[in-house]
């Protein structure tokens, strides 16, 4: 069952990536996703997460103040049903797997294409 609308929080320390994800959301296929916030570090992300309790979070791994692994753990503890998509340039698969074990639902390599992100979002909200 698809909900009518999903809220999204973008977490990434790169402004370019943040605005890129926001831009990709303008694709008509993603009309059901509404961005509620952007965070550029882990602490900021947690604060916004608690206020907005978004359905979906895109999560960077390497960030100042609190990394994506810890951030994911905290978010899942707060709201176990949220879908976290890890987006990282990590060549280290072990760290990515660690984040998934903490409760993230998917992983996307940087650099990604528009299509890859759209596909990942569609996959994430399916079922």
């Amino acid at each position: 069952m698809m909900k009518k609308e999903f809220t999204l929080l973008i977490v990434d320390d790169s402004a370019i990536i943040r605005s890129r994800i926001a831009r990709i959301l303008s694709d008509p296929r993603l009309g059901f996703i509404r961005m509620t916030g952007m965070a550029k570090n882990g602490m900021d992300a947690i604060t916004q997460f608690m206020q907005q309790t978004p359905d979906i979070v895109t999560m960077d791994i390497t960030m100042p103040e609190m990394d994506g692994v810890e951030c994911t753990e905290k978010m899942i503890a707060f709201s176990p049903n949220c879908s976290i998509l890890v987006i990282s340039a990590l060549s280290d698969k072990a760290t990515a797997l660690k984040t998934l074990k903490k409760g993230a639902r998917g992983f996307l390599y940087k650099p990604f294409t528009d299509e890859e992100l759209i596909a990942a979002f569609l996959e994430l909200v399916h079922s």
Partner: protein
Amino acid sequence: MDKRNEQSVFARYRKIILAVILFMVVDSLVIGINFYNTYKADESALSINLSGRQGTLSQRITTVLLLMQRSLDANDESSLVGNLQDSDLTVNIFNLPPSVVRNLKELDQTVTLFDTTLKGFSDGGIVTGGDGKPTLLTQVETAVSRQLVADTSEIWTKYFELLKPLLGEERNFSVAELKEAVSYAQNNNLEIQRLMNDLTTDLETVANKRASTLRIVLVIGIIVAFINFCYTVIITLRDLMSGDKKLAESRNENAEILATVHEGLFLLNKDKKLGTQFSESLPRMLHMDIVPGMDFMPILKNMVSSEVYESAVDYVELLLGERVKESLVASLNPLTNIPVSMLDKFGNTQSRYLSFFFNRALVDDKISHVLVTVQDVTDRVQLQKQVEQAKSMSKAEVETLLRLAGNDFTSLQQFIDNTSQALGQINEKLSESHDDTRALLHTLNYVLRLVHGIKGEAAALGIEALEGYAHACEQEMVAMRESGQELTSDSIVRVAVLLEGFYERYSSLANIASRLGSVLGTGALNRPDAAAAPIVHPMVEHVTHLAQRIATDHGKEVEISCHFDKLSGLPDHIVRELQSISIQLVRNALVHGIETPTERLTRNKPRTGSLSLWCEYLGSGLYEFTVRDDGRGIVPEHLRANFVKNGRLTPEKAAAMSDKEIAGLIFKPGISTADKANIDAGHGVGLDVVLEKVDTMQGGRLSVKSRPDSFTEFRIQFSAA
């Protein structure tokens, strides 16, 4: 199960279901016929029974009448009758003997029974049955029966009239009446008997006919039912058999697939144990015996490094859990292109590459297993490696092609000659005996200088593959030199191996150059003679090209002016030397001399730096070649600080040296003022190459002029007599 599934079930069993329905219908029909038959048979039996009884009744009536007459005859008639004279004297019933009275009563019953039964045959109605109970008698059906009944009725009507006086409570009949009835009975009894007998026979015939028809219908029904039953059984059996066959086939297909498939296939359950079925190739691929139900993880543990193993455990657990999306984690599969060593059939160790792919197997949308596919990807990995190697090799070739296409055969040929010569010189140096560290250092410096020269020229021609290799060699040899005490004669083997690499790259370059040269015609590679020389000397392009590239790499802006007109008349070997020298000096000027645009602006200099190269004829066969930049100049304090920082000089020694001595150090090997080694400068080779080349030139002299923050100028004087 959804609707479609239900439909398919009905479609699959439609034949059987129809056959069963038909069977039931036919059976009901047969049973119905049977019931009807039995009912009809009962009915016929009743009719036959009663028609038979009519005969008996008629006989009885006659008998009773005769008995009455005899009884009257036997007694004194006068005692019975009031008036003996008159024949129609009525009989006084009270005077009748008891036997006659009994007879009269019987006559009553018998006549009534006969009458109602006959009416029943004629019109249908309730009659008293053989058991004395009322029974429904149906009208006779056939024409023959009707006629018989009608004939009987005709006789009976008269008979019944005659009998009427003898019946009832108040019997009031005369002897004559009795005689008349007796005589009628005697005359007609036989006829009635015959008629009733005929009726019985006819009824029997009808009943038999109907019974045999019904029997035929019943037999046909039973036969149809039986055929239907057989049909149902056959269809069911056939369907079952074909189902079994399909099942067996699919089982066989499964087994066949598992036996022939190249990939290792198996299912992993939630406990990470192997399923019962797996492909036959699996034990071979994993090089171990596989038993259903064995733990997968220990198998893996023996095959991969502990880090990969940890990741694999995480990955498999994620797939067995419900949370992550399979398609969104596929890129994290840690078990692709895993190198494993195995024994081949000769017992030799062989290194192979395996990839494990994991897919969830869902039952009712729940993860029941993970399907694991193991592929031997050795060929693919090796092909990939070869392609990569070929790519880097062909890169050099393509670059060479581009040079040739750029109408630059002369300089390419020159480069090939120079490189060949330099490599030969390196090899010769390596073949000398190295008896101590000093000799090794000497060789190392010598090789470094030559390699640096090759690097510079390769860069100038844009042959990046060779430039890159030269740079890598340079870095490695500088590291060797830095290692100081640890430098042993073994290092010379490494240098020889590096040289081999150079030769390999060089020969592929030379190969393609000569091949293309022959395609383009030998003239292409011939040196142009002086008269045909272009107005712009070819060196101008090389130098400009190199300078712009280095400037871009270092974030600098530069305007280059070259005046090489005077070079046209000079012999090739001198031009070649000058080109090598200018390459090193241009590099030096751009890396160390000219500042970045920002720095220049803060120093009130134009944003774009300027670099000039020119050649002058001084007369008497003497030439002067100058390279000048308007950069930061040679600042002795700056150099001193750098030398100390790099550990080349102790602070004390640096302080003790004069500015001139410090500046002179830039021509010594192992000195560089760039902070970090990069491809263009910084290995402390460059200016020593220049000095060495100038030394080999006839009448060669090198001088340097510089003013801090203003300019640096290198002048080379030589004789071309």
